[in-house]
């Protein structure tokens, strides 16, 4: 591993790395038709992707004959790589932020990377009506918490409707704990409306202060409120709302509340009954990030159908398939493939659900989500078609850097085991305690 804790070094490494050319691959750009050809990576970006390319001098050549190259997979709903998920003590926990608790060494990140995922929207949990701030990360395995952040990605915040925020699923609701407002869907709406009413007042207070200072009148800056600031960000379109929801009634409720307060829901998350109100979702302009085929694990998921993504897509909603799980994130490609069985999507449509569509939802599509010149070289090489259950990711590049290599992983296994045994041996009682070899 390189020195993992310096962005300067990381950037240098990318800039200094020789260009890479992946040759003879079935290239699936997603945004345009697939072709057999090459992709040139330089300075962490895609320099060229075409049937015929100019091979830069000194380039490392990877022959990918018979293999499939697709854009790095993007998960619009994940909870990997964090030390905390829920600040569940309060109904509005917008002061809490995922960015503060990124755990860059959590093994789930590596496992997701090994499944071809290169970007994840890491969300606060769904314990509260208005949850915490989210972080979009790149799976730069080996980098520090700060370096994992997707630079320039617009910040987000998690909302949650239905059973989770009204706490029917929380352990304390089964115990003797006192009821925390809200306990109904009506209460959930109220919490959101109250919070934004408060946020508007706060916004006004600051505006007045700014006006006064502009007029050079004496004024004391209002108290900064880290609970309300993210909501003002939402009102002023500086922060995306990613809202956990299930039932059509609550989906509609949220759209209307947002419209009442003058903002837009960026994505509806899970949105298992989105297919029932696809028209309204499309009209509002919200994206939808859903599961492939989860259902029946709770009452609000009983009308969930695996055709959800297909219906919403056909009705003009920008749809993505997410994982919400450290397991499923490892195989989002086959999750997307299910939409071909359930709803008859085309291969390109299916793949767009885990690439360009989530990129658009997160407004990072200028950087990632397809194989196009100038975009970040976030790429996955599969041995078979990525929509096949038999496909295994072989190489995963993030910013042009090979962050996962199956061959390398397999080769390193005996070494890792030997290293473990050596460390255990050192700890055995009676073993001479030699000074530890320092890590790089």
């Amino acid at each position, binding site marked *: 591993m390189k020195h993992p*804790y310096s962005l300067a070094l990381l950037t240098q490494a990318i800039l200094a790395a020789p260009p890479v050319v992946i040759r003879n691959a079935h290239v699936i750009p997603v945004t345009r038709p697939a072709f057999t050809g090459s992709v040139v990576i330089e300075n962490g970006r895609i320099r060229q992707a075409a049937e015929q390319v100019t091979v830069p001098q000194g380039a490392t050549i990877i022959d990918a004959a018979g293999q499939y190259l697709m854009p790095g997979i993007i998960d619009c709903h994940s909870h990997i790589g964090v030390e905390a998920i*829920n600040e569940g*003590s*309060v109904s509005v926990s917008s002061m809490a932020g995922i960015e*503060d608790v990124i755990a*860059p060494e959590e093994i789930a990140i590596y496992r997701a990377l090994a499944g071809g995922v290169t970007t994840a929207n890491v969300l606060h949990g769904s314990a509260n009506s208005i949850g915490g701030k989210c972080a979009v990360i790149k799976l730069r395995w080996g980098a520090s918490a700060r370096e994992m952040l997707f630079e320039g990605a617009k910040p987000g915040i998690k909302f949650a409707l239905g059973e989770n925020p009204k706490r029917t699923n929380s352990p304390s609701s089964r115990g003797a704990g006192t009821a925390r407002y809200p306990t109904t869907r009506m209460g959930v709406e109220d919490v959101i409306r109250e919070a934004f009413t408060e946020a508007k007042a706060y916004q006004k207070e600051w505006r007045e202060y700014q006006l006064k200072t502009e007029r050079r009148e004496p004024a004391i*800056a209002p*108290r900064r409120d880290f609970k309300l600031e993210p909501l003002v960000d939402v009102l002023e379109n500086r922060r995306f709302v990613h809202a956990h929801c299930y039932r059509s009634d609550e989906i509609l409720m949220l759209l209307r509340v947002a419209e009442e307060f003058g903002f837009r829901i960026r994505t509806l998350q899970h949105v298992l009954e989105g297919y029932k109100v696809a028209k309204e979702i499309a009209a509002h302009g919200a994206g939808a990030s859903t599961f492939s085929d989860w259902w029946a694990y709770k009452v609000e998921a009983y009308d969930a159908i695996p055709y959800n993504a297909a219906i919403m897509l056909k009705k003009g909603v920008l749809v993505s398939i997410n994982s919400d799980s450290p397991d499923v994130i490892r195989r989002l490609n086959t999750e997307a493939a299910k939409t071909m069985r359930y709803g008859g999507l085309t291969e390109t449509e299916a793949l767009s659900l885990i690439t360009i569509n989530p990129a658009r939802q997160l407004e990072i599509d200028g950087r990632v989500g397809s194989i196009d010149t100038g975009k970040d070289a976030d790429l996955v090489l599969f041995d078979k078609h990525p929509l096949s259950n038999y496909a295994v990711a072989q190489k995963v590049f993030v910013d042009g850097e090979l962050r996962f290599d199956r061959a390398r992983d397999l080769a390193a296994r005996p070494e890792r085991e030997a290293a473990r045994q050596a460390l255990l041996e050192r*700890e055995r009682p009676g073993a001479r305690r030699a000074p530890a070899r*320092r890590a790089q």
Partner: protein
Amino acid sequence: MILGQADSPPMKPLRIPPCARAALALLPFLGAAADPPALAVRNARIVTVTGPVLENGTLLVRNGLIEALGGNVPVPANAWVLDGAGLTVYPGLMDALSTLAAGADLPQPGAASPRNGPSAPSGATPARGPEDRPLTTSWIKAADTLQAADRNIDLFRQAGFTGAATFPTRGIFGGHGAVINLASAPAGKMVVEPSVGLYAALATGGAGSFPSSLMGSISYIRQIYADAAHYVAMKEAYAANARGRQRPAYDRALEGVLEARRLLLPGSRAVEIERSLRLAAELKVRAVLYGGHEAYRVTEPLKQSGMPILVSVKWPERDPNGDPDEVESLRQLRLRAQAPGSPAALAQAGVRFAFYSDGLQSPDQIKRGVRRAIENGLDETAALRAMTLAPAEIFGVADRLGSIEPGKIANLVIADGPLFAETTRIRYVVVDGVKYEPVQRENAR
């Protein structure tokens, strides 16, 4: 027992039952409460820490201070004289983060869960947000709640500790620490500096009480600092012109935060160290990190930040309550193997660090921990500095403590060999100029 040696004042032979001997451990010089007489150590090896080692020097202590040291120091006629032949004098050791004598922890709002440590008094209410100031007692000072009768004072002094930075450590904002001398003296006389920093931890409250998560705790610290800034502005405006203005409510939590000379923030693993460095930079506070086990991986950012770090000598160990068949991760094993190498890495990188006991109750364990750092590459001089001058500098008391220099407080440890060697015995400990003699236990090391 070495009571009543030739150079000690005559004293009645004491009959101490064997079981009480350990508890007494160190017996203070008789008349310690009065002004101590002058004390001289002759012909000793003197490790000053700040200057060169005197191979055969004399050290004169008067009025609790180091008065002189050198090859040829005149010794007053009435001074107690110790023959230092074969002995080495060091500055007294200091535990850079301790709860020694810090006094009872006070109840805090939002501390309803027994998971949080000692269970809170009944009736503790869940906190509903930052406004309830959960897990906060930022207004309390260890100096004000000092328990002079803490039995561990004796225990630590016997091992050569003459001082400690001691803190109330409960909750998120525990309270202000004090640098104290481990003297047998009234609490007020023990205090060297009453308020050296505010102890903060990323603690969480009971179920249903804010904050319940790491990110909640961090957001709370952030909010408290923002509130404090606003509080100052409001108070200043009110002080300038009270007429027609609403009175800002007095907030003891913010008062406590505003008084903090430094903020102690946790940082044991690399990710935690980096997190606290960022938080400190964001809050624009002078921070001291504590933990440091994985500091070897982040010496560069630490160096750049200029922030010192207190390194716990309670090195990670395999969980004695864990499953013996459990296959531990390489990461865990590496941390265990390499944590004791952190001090050496910090020393090499030029990061200021000091050692602390981190709850280890026995000074023997602490010394064993220091020895492991030495075995893992830390040179003994740096180890000594990390327990003397470095903590004094970190807490801003290096003008008084941490080295053997004329004018500094006479906190000394006199041993019959290299301080950290396993076979070395501590012969005398001097705190505030008062000499203590360890009661040598039968099987003491």
